[in-house]
């Protein structure tokens, strides 16, 4: 396959990806409507009269009225139309923006509209610069002079042609009437400001990298494959809109008070007040969580598990119920799925020995069918080999343990101790002070090092795990004591 590179192509690209151009053209046509469009009139400028000139403030007012938007948005839209080259300024012609005053603009002739069909050729630009040079030596600006020299160098082989064309265009222009000539010169100059912008200016024609495939090209490949897929899609089970949309709406309502853009962040949003208490109180493994955080755990089992503090609390509850193996198994499966490929086999075996094998120290209770599939799959382990078992255990915890956790003393205790911080009420002076006192935080690299050290310490000084002892005994061939009655 060809690898595209972005080496300068001297502007020979064309632009198939500016879908905005068609929409812009529609707006332009409306703006030029003699009855309902922007008011225009001839304007005296220096010694000539320019027909059909429009003022910046009229353009903005028309856009604001037509699209029912405020003047700032109208001004932005107007400036984009100028930036694309559909409207050009008569004064200050290099700044492609709409000024909200009596500054004058004109609609660009469709001949010079940006197009998607063909490239804006360097040849044409060279002819334009040469023509201006012929008319008056030294009239080219610095960047234009540089461009001219560059083009002269790499287009040297057709320079005769370029000079000939330039002379011809210059001669033809002299035969036009003066007012027409002035207008055409303005239009042409505006066109080149858009397509060969001065350095350091923003160009609306810049659309970034080429995409590999042209959207306008017609492709009829892989149709039969698509049809099979479409057939399968037709048979997909679907849910009624009222049900699924209802769920989306309910989700918004549930989380409304937790969304910092919709409700106050307590004690305050660090980005607004430069006070990081909110983050400190909500660190991943803080000892006492906030009331809002605990409330989130009750929204769904997923919320509880995804918050490390919540998961710890749940783990504590499960330990008291002697069903901690379920969560441990689930965590082991996650580790298998998302972990390094190299240790995957080992991990799968370890999980099997610890949780699934007959007489395993932390045996989990899954139904026969799932166990069969899992054990079979473990002969050729892959990352998703424990998927069925994991889903089963997850559902078990979700439908059973989760509910009991929320009614348990562990949870009630956590909830009782949870903090509900008061809202900060900073004065302007205090806010200024806060802004001056912004401090860096501990790097995640250090935090991870600390976490690993903590884990190592805990493993070293942990009380004797009865399950480990049992597994050692069984390895030594001694009698295995009956395992504690499984709680589900």
């Amino acid at each position: 396959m060809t690898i595209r590179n972005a080496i300068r192509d001297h502007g020979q690209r064309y632009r198939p990806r500016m879908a905005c151009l068609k929409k812009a053209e529609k707006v332009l046509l409306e703006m030029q409507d003699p009855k309902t469009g922007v008011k225009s009139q001839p304007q005296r400028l220096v010694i000539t009269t320019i027909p059909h000139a429009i003022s910046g403030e009229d353009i903005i007012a028309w856009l604001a009225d037509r699209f029912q938007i405020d003047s700032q948005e109208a001004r932005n839209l107007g400036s984009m139309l100028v930036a694309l080259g559909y409207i050009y300024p008569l004064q200050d012609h290099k700044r492609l923006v709409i000024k909200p005053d009596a500054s004058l603009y004109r609609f660009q002739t469709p001949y010079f509209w940006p197009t998607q069909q063909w490239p804006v050729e360097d040849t044409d630009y060279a002819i334009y610069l040469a023509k201006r040079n012929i008319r008056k030596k030294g009239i080219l600006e610095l960047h234009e002079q540089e461009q001219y020299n560059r083009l002269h160098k790499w287009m040297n082989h057709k320079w005769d042609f370029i000079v000939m064309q330039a002379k011809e265009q210059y001669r033809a222009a002299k035969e036009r009437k003066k007012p027409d000539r002035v207008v055409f010169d303005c239009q042409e100059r505006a066109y080149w400001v858009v397509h060969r912008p001065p350095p350091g200016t923003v160009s609306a024609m810049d659309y970034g990298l080429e995409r590999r495939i042209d959207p306008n090209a017609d492709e009829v490949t892989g149709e039969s494959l698509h049809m099979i897929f479409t057939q399968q899609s037709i048979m997909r089970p679907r849910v009624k809109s009222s049900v699924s949309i209802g769920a989306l709406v309910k989700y918004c309502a549930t989380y409304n008070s937790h969304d910092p853009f919709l409700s106050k962040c307590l004690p305050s949003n660090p980005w607004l007040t430069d006070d990081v208490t909110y983050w400190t109180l909500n660190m991943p493994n803080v000892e006492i969580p906030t009331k809002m955080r605990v409330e989130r755990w009750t929204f769904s089992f997923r919320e509880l598990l995804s918050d490390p503090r919540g998961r710890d609390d749940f783990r504590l509850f499960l330990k008291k119920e002697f069903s901690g193996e379920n969560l441990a198994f689930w965590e082991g499966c996650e580790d298998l799925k998302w972990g390094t490929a190299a240790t995957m086999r080992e991990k799968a075996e370890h999980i099997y020995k610890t949780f699934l094998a007959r007489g395993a120290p932390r045996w989990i209770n899954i139904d026969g069918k799932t166990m069969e599939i899992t054990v079979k799959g473990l002969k050729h382990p892959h990352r998703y080999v424990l998927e069925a078992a994991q889903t089963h255990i997850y559902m078990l915890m979700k439908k059973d343990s989760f509910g009991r956790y929320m009614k348990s003393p562990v949870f009630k205790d956590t909830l009782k101790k949870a903090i509900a911080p008061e809202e900060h009420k900073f004065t302007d002076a205090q806010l200024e002070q806060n802004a001056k006192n912004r401090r860096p935080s501990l790097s995640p690299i250090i935090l991870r090092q600390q976490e690993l050290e903590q884990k190592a310490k805990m493993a070293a000084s942990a009380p004797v795990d009865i399950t480990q002892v049992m597994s050692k005994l069984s390895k030594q061939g001694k009698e295995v004591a009956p395992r504690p009655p499984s709680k589900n």
Partner: protein
Amino acid sequence: MRSPPIPEMATQEVQLNETLAHLKTESETLKSKLEEERAKLHDVELHQVAEKVEGLGQFVMKTRRTLKGHGNKVLCMDWCKDKRRIVSSSQDGKVIVWDAFTTNKEHAVTMPCTWVMACAYAPSGCAVACGGLDNKCSVYPLSLDKNENLAAKKKSVAMHTNYLSACSFTNSDMQILTSSGDGTCALWDVESGQLLQSFHGHAADVLCLDLAPSETGNTFVSGGCDKKANVWDMRSGQCIQSFETHESDINSVRYYPSGDAFASGSDDATCRLYDLRADREVAIYSKESIIFGVSSVDFSLSGRLLFGGYNDYTINVWDVLKGTRVSILFGHENRVSTLRVSPDGTAFCTGSWDHTLRIWA
């Protein structure tokens, strides 16, 4: 006697054209049938259900930080899980890690290629991944030693046959999901660089992807230049759902926080919401005055607000349920190329071709 016999090649070509035409009609018929099936269960519109929902108040969102330091167009950014650090990448090959709160630059890497269109922060906060015109995705472990050259420990993970458009770590530092201009997405093992799964189905460049926050966490959505948004099963590599309602390239896709829907932003100047369970598009966020493409979208924490970064230098904020535009934000001086809400929803960050990043809250 009939007219002179047509040469054999021409006959074959006519037959081929007829077969293609036949296939095309059959394909169109099937697509209409799919739309029919989807419509059968469509008993209510989103905005109808949203009528009962309370309206949103006025918003005051301002730029709270401006991060200056890139020397060229900012193309991509991602948040660290610590809610204040970010990584950003630009056209000149520079990748910078910032503490957005203090605006300090903490790490910087210069990639050996330009147009670094993809960057991602590892879940642990200890590494970043990036790539672009080099067709690769590389992982750089971060170091506290200011003198250490981060490029020395770089790991080349993904290899595509065309530019890298997006990358994302999965639930750990060990796996990366990538999308590319070569039309495919792929899942890689970071340690070994091994390809774990590839995803074929897009007919053109894939421009964006997002991992599902679902309970079983095994799917992701991708958007491409073929105007399709595809939902993939990470285990099998199969495309399980596909939506083709946009009229132009899809530049950005993002899951709704519940994982049951996703939003997309396209060059056709619209954002759309797709409901995965109902299997259909349920909302279009557009306005006649918005004619420039959307480069990037993201939801607020509750999913009520959708933020869109546009090519006309603005940010539009949409009420996801009611479908109305709540706010328009100005500030950037060139295209907004990337937009992400912070992990705790307290702010969102935008990156722009004007070389800066802004934090809004």
